[in-house]
Structures are given as C-alpha cells and as structure tokens.
C-alpha cells in the first residue's frame, strides 16, 4: 500500500459544518465505496443516505441490502454526529455499537438514516441512530454506540504501517 497522504485542506477545517462532514466522507474510502451521502446537518445531528446498489445486496434471492452495509453506514453517520457535536472537531473511533434489526430493507430503495450525539464528553461520545426508507417511525434498524474522542491523539500519519517496537 502507498504511504498515506495528509488530508485535504477542507478536511475538518471548513467553517461550513455540512461541507466539513462531506469532506470527511470523501476522505473515508469505505464510506465512498458504499456511496454514502450526508444530506443535512445540525449541531450534534446528521442525516444521510446510502443509494441502493446491486453490489451491496446480501441476499441474492430477495435483493435485500446486506446488514454489513447498514452497519458501516450507521457507524459512519454516528461518528459524523459525534464530530458535529464538537466545537473543535477531532477524530473519533468506535468503541462499541449495538444494532437491532426490526425488518429487512426494501429492495431497490435508498436507505436513509439520522444520527444524534446525545452526550459528548471529554473522552467519550454517545450516539444513537435509526435507519429507514420513508420515516423513522418505520425503522429498518436502530443503533446505539460509544466513541472514543480524539482517537488519533499522539499517533502520527501512517502509525498503523509501522512495526511495533519489541
């Protein structure tokens, strides 16, 4: 793998929160790979969607999108909600997440989600989100997660590429 490049100037630096979060998504290869978009942002709240795509299907018989896509989407949107709650944005890393699946996503339709960071501490952010097609009243899945705040602290670009010291 090539050396990691420093982030673009827009990453975590724009004054417009929506632009900042969109830059974060563009800078996250897996979020881009599932086609995730952020559509709206308020302090501590983020709305987004993943467009339906055949290559994300988990059950070829029904055409239902894979649970793993929902996991990735909800994890990412919860992370952005944690950052959207911060006065000075920094990195976050998921400590744990719990997803309840109420039903299968409808084949052929975009999956929407909204996330709310309901508590931002100095070290930990707590976030919940719901995924749906039309309304949060008819959810596909719910997630609750905890994030470590400032997770890159003290770690340099490419820290994971270096061998551990003996």
């Amino acid at each position, binding site marked *: 793998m090539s050396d990691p490049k420093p982030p673009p100037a827009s990453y975590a630096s724009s004054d417009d929160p929506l632009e900042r979060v969109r830059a974060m998504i563009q800078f996250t290869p897996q979020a881009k790979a599932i086609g995730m978009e952020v559509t709206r942002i308020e302090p501590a709240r983020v709305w987004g969607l993943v467009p339906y795509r055949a290559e994300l299907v988990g059950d070829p018989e029904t055409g239902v999108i894979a649970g793993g896509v929902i996991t*990735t989407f909800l994890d990412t949107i919860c992370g952005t909600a944690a950052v959207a709650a911060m006065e000075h944005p920094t990195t976050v890393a998921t400590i744990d997440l719990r997803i309840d699946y109420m039903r299968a996503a409808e084949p052929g339709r975009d999956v929407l989600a909204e996330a709310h960071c309901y508590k931002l501490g100095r070290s930990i952010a707590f976030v919940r989100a719901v995924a749906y097609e039309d309304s949060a009243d008819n959810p596909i899945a719910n997630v609750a997660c905890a994030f470590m705040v400032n997770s890159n602290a003290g770690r340099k670009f490419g820290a994971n590429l270096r061998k551990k010291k003996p």
Partner: protein
Amino acid sequence: MSDTPQHRVAAALERIPYARFLGLRAELKGDELTLIMPFSQHLVGNPLLPALHGGVVGALMEVTALTQLAIASKSERFPKTIDIGIDYLRSGKPVDTFARARVVKIGRRVANVQAEAWQGERSQPIATLHGHFMTPETDEPAA
C-alpha cells in the same frame, strides 16, 4: 471442493454480491469456517493511520456468524439477524483480516452466536461480536 452441505454453504457465501464487494473468501476445516477478508484500499475507514473501517470488520464477523450458524443448523439458507453487538478492541491494520464464529446455542426460534476477528495473532483479536439470529427454518418475522 467436495459437495457436502458445509461446502455448499461456503460456496453460497461466495455468490453473495456484498461478500464479493468485501472480497471475502471462505475456508472450511470439518465444520469450522474461517472467513478471510484480504486487505483492500476501499475497506479503509481512517486513512491517516490507516485503519480498516469498523463497519467492514463488523460485517466480516456478522457474515461469519450467519454462515457458521447455517452450517451448525444444517440449513442452506442464511438466517435473519435480530441484533448484533460489536466491541472494537484494536484498530484494524491495512493487512488481511480473519474471522471465526462459535454457535453458543441454537434455540427453537432464536440462536446465539459469538464471533471474533483478528489479524497477525489469533490471541490478539481486533474486534468481537455477539449476535442473536432467527433460527433457520423458523422464518417468523422478528417482531
């Protein structure tokens, strides 16, 4: 590949579009399944470290749990997920990742499965998962 029910499940896994999207490969020894997710740039979630996206590590463990449960319950269909809990223990490095699952209990309607993912050393898991799934063949809605 020999044509046992276990091997048919492993082959079915490789026909799932999302499993191909992740690049998953299945290895089966007896009835124990190991899934391998070779590193690929599109799996990255934190490009600075760089680290794998937590979502794909979770997805790897969920697919492993679903497939191991299908094998254990002698079903050729993948079960439905009711809920999963994922603990992230270490950041996923830009290398190949492995996962295995243990079916703790198959109840009449609900099955309990645990899974873990590791990279260099099995004793140093990067994440663990526990989940509840509809026992295959029951196929009643979760709600």
